[in-house]
């Protein structure tokens, strides 16, 4: 079985500062990892690295079968789903229009967006502009997009922060769904209680170093 993430001795420097140091990680399809760490420990940078959005300074390995330092790494971006701590939606568009925009760019079926909005409970407010929607609605919209995109590698950055119980359950359902499709999930948070029990392994990120959670 090919690992979804298999990286070794990866360093990441941003603005001349070492953010991640000697990062090694191996996760196969259907596996998940929870990473807990204090603010500024490098959690978001680690997820952006795994999402191929920042380039490692050094190290070896693959993400979804692509060498991390090769230019071809960007070919896997369409298979990665990322929920950042700040929603990435366009405020002036409605909830439905955001999903439609994403679906057009990612060549997904727009009908799937309607179904996904129904699943996350936003069908009735789909015509509401994002900048007039609550944070929880914005997060649900992003979950709806992930339901459409069906990523092979799901990366969650403080995905449950600021959400009500129902929305947090949606995040858990999204994790379960991804794992059931043999996807891989990595979730990070500063609060271990927000990571949930659905994730197989737990690790600690302190000052850019990943360590087993004691």
């Amino acid at each position: 079985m090919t690992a979804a993430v298999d990286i070794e001795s990866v360093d990441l420097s941003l603005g001349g500062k070492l953010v991640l140091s000697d990062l090694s990680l191996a996760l196969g399809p259907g596996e998940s990892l929870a990473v807990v760490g204090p603010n500024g420990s490098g959690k978001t940078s680690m997820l952006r690295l795994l999402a191929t959005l920042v380039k490692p300074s050094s190290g070896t390995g693959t993400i979804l079968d692509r060498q991390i330092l090769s230019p071809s790494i960007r070919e896997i971006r369409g298979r990665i789903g990322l929920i950042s701590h700040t929603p990435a939606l366009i405020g002036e568009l409605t909830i439905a229009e955001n999903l439609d925009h994403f679906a057009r760019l990612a060549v997904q079926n727009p009908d799937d967006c309607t179904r996904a909005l129904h699943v996350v409970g936003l069908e009735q407010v789909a015509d509401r502009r994002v900048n007039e929607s609550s944070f929880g609605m914005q997060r649900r919209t992003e979950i709806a997009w992930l339901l459409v995109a069906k990523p092979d590698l799901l990366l969650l950055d403080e995905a449950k922060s600021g959400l009500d119980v129902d929305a947090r359950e949606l995040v858990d359902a999204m994790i379960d769904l991804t794992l059931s499709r043999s996807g891989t999930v990595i979730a990070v948070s500063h609060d271990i209680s927000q990571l949930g029990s659905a994730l197989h392994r737990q690790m600690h990120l302190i000052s850019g170093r990943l360590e087993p959670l004691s």
Partner: protein
Amino acid sequence: MSFTGQIREVARVDLVVERRTGDTFRIVLPFAIVTLIIFSLSLGGEVAILRTVGPAVFWAISVLFGMQLALRASALDSPTRRDLMLLLNLDPAARFLGRTLASSTIVLVFMAVLFATMVVLFDPSLPGGWFWPLLAAISLAAIGLAALSTLAGGVAAGTRNRSSLASLIVAPLAIPIVVGASQVLEAMERNSGILLWILLLITSDLALLVAGVGLSRPLEEASR
């Protein structure tokens, strides 16, 4: 989605966002018109001077405000939105061209309305047959300013002083566009050919578009 489809989609969304925020026509355009009025008042109502300087004032205000309009589109992108666009496999070159297309349209309409206002306020003596050459000059200037500002927005993306930096990049590089566009009417006044100035505008636009397309991927990689 095809490359041209991506360009259309980026332009469509940028125009929808512009229509809904209404910043150009509710805020920037009135402010630019007020600037024109202030200029006309500060010249003391001297009709001969107003007629002479009207087009020059128009170009100066058009370039300064047009540049800011085009830069604003890039400034609206949050880092998380830029990340998402990459994960959606949006080609950076298509994004550059789509954004340039939308910004060109906005700047063109802005300049057209501003020119009409300038004509009312300054009553410049326009040479015969001015309409089509001026339309060509304004259109080419709008494309150039949009391409230059979008490119500058990409260069400055992720930097701390991005808005100041982008303006500093745009201002000197906009000189060929300003010279080419402003000299079209001047050349017609002098009964000399306008082809040279139109060619300068076309060359500037093409250079900026080629640079924008060519640099879009390296700029994206540099920001990784």
